[in-house]
């Protein structure tokens, strides 16, 4: 029993060791370790400029790291490009969602990998089939219904619906292994936030491990199993959510032991 538990603990889908990244003279990441287990939601937190986005861009193939190694399902990999990372099953929903506002939901879900039929030596888009599949996906996996907005351009959708379309595009491929979400709740109202958090849990329950960046610790605590904290480009702690507290995480984020970072303008 204990052994099995231990094995599960070590069941890393993704591992990064000693990741370092410089932008010119600026060290955005310094020897950062990171891991993601099968079936967990990992919260990634840190102050502005701590290096969160940089880390996930490296993990999703947007940038190469200057040093360090990445293991996907225990195999070392070199992510050559975003396309390459996608082909390995690393999907991402970036902060700006990257939807084409003027296209309908299903066209966005399938953008870049449309379903088409050959006719007279040419390929014609099967819009009806894409619509059915996209709506099924949103309904079954994400529990989102678009109602009367099924065929409407996505600028007509609410923030939460847009979010689900962006996630739908990331997860519709069967071979998805990891989903990364950069600040998925940043632009949402309370109700939509609740839906998105629920959606993250739903994904985890479908066996897709998720990395979530968020500034709101409330949200991180609501969805995550573990939390990784970055401060000024360094990894300063990994905690099990259940065994930690917001005070502890906040302390790690701002560096409680370094008193000088606490603003004391009131006294000065």
């Amino acid at each position, binding site marked *: 029993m204990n052994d099995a538990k231990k094995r599960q603990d070590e069941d890393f889908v993704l591992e990064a060791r000693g990741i370092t990244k410089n932008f010119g003279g600026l060290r955005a990441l310094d020897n950062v370790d990171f891991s993601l287990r099968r079936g967990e939601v990992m919260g990634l937190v840190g102050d502005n400029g701590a290096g969160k986005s940089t880390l996930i861009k490296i993990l999703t193939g947007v940038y190469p790291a200057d040093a360090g190694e990445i293991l996907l399902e225990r195999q070392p990999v070199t992510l050559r490009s975003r396309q390459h990372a996608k082909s390995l099953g690393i999907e991402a929903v970036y902060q700006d969602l*990257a939807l084409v*506002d003027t296209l309908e939901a299903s066209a966005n879900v399938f953008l870049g990998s*449309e379903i088409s039929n050959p006719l007279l030596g040419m390929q014609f888009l099967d819009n009806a089939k894409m619509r059915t599949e996209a709506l099924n996906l949103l309904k079954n996996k994400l529990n989102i219904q678009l109602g009367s907005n099924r065929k409407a351009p996505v600028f007509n959708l*609410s923030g939460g619906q847009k979010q689900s379309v962006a996630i739908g595009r990331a997860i519709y491929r069967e071979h998805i292994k990891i989903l990364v979400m950069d600040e998925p709740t940043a632009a949402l109202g309370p109700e939509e936030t609740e839906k998105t958090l629920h959606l993250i849990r739903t994904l985890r329950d479908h066996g897709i491990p998720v990395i979530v960046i968020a500034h709101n610790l409330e949200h991180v605590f609501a969805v995550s199993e573990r939390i990784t904290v970055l401060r000024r480009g360094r990894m300063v702690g990994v905690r099990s959510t259940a065994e930690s507290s917001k005070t502890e995480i906040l302390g790690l984020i701002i560096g409680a032991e370094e008193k000088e970072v606490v603003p004391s303008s009131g006294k000065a």
Partner: protein
Amino acid sequence: MNDTTPAKSVQKLIARLGPGFVLIVVILVAAFMVPRFFTTLNLINVLYQSSIYIVLAVGMTFVITGGGIDLSIGSQVALISVVMSGFIHAWGWPVGLAMVVAIFFGMGLGAVNGFVITGLRMPDFIVTLAAMETFRGFALVHSAGKIWFDFPSSFRYIGITRWAGLPIPTIVALILAAIGYYIYHKTHFGRYTIAVGGNRTAAIYCGIPVSRYKVFQYVLMGGLCGLAAILITSRLDSSQATMAQGYEIHTIAAVIMGGTSLFGGSGNVVGSVVGALILGIIANTMVLLGVDYFWRLVVTGLLIVLAVGLNQWRENVMREASLEAVKETAKESTS
């Protein structure tokens, strides 16, 4: 929904009809002012005169949807026309060969635009403005002030023959519009044109080769300039370097009137055809009324502003309506 006044409903109805509404108004005004307007002969004449603009507007719908604009199409038509005329007259090429080469030549001109825009990362507006000047210059150099006329009858056939009562250019334009509609909605090319114009970053992120599609759009536009050059040259039975001036303005106006967004990302091929017809009817009516050519330019310019303004107003009404719809569905889903 109880705050909906009748005035608002009328607004929405007009907005939904869009360019169709303008077309109906223009037809009614024309019929009222010129009794001769509604004769079969005149209606066919309007279609005949609009067919060149329909051909060009179909191509321009793709270019503008893709976030670009092509100001060089009038010059392209002129350059292709004089070069093709040279093939036929000076070199004695068979008409069919000259026409095929004309279309490929147009695609080549479009490719030049596309490669300069994507390769040098320059704005579409600037590149095609420069091309407008350059292509016109080449046309003037090539023809050296000559006017080509008296084309072989096999070539003139296209411009003057009717099939099933309709002039060949009209038939060509309508078939082309139907094909354009299918390409726009049913092919990767159409879909990616919308994506590139709507959100370039998203398109890149989804692995769409955005530069390649931009070039394709200009190649299509150039090919259609070739087709337009054939139709207009054959119809007029003449060709000279100064022809087809202002075609870009008319074509862009027709496309914007038809509901294609000047900001890219959304367009309407059928609307562009309607836009071309609206401009055709206005021109035709003024000719029938005997309006002086200079005044016709003034009136056309003002009407273009009016129609484009109307289209912008329409987009605002539609956006408002859709925002209301979002609120409605939000309410539905919470209750």
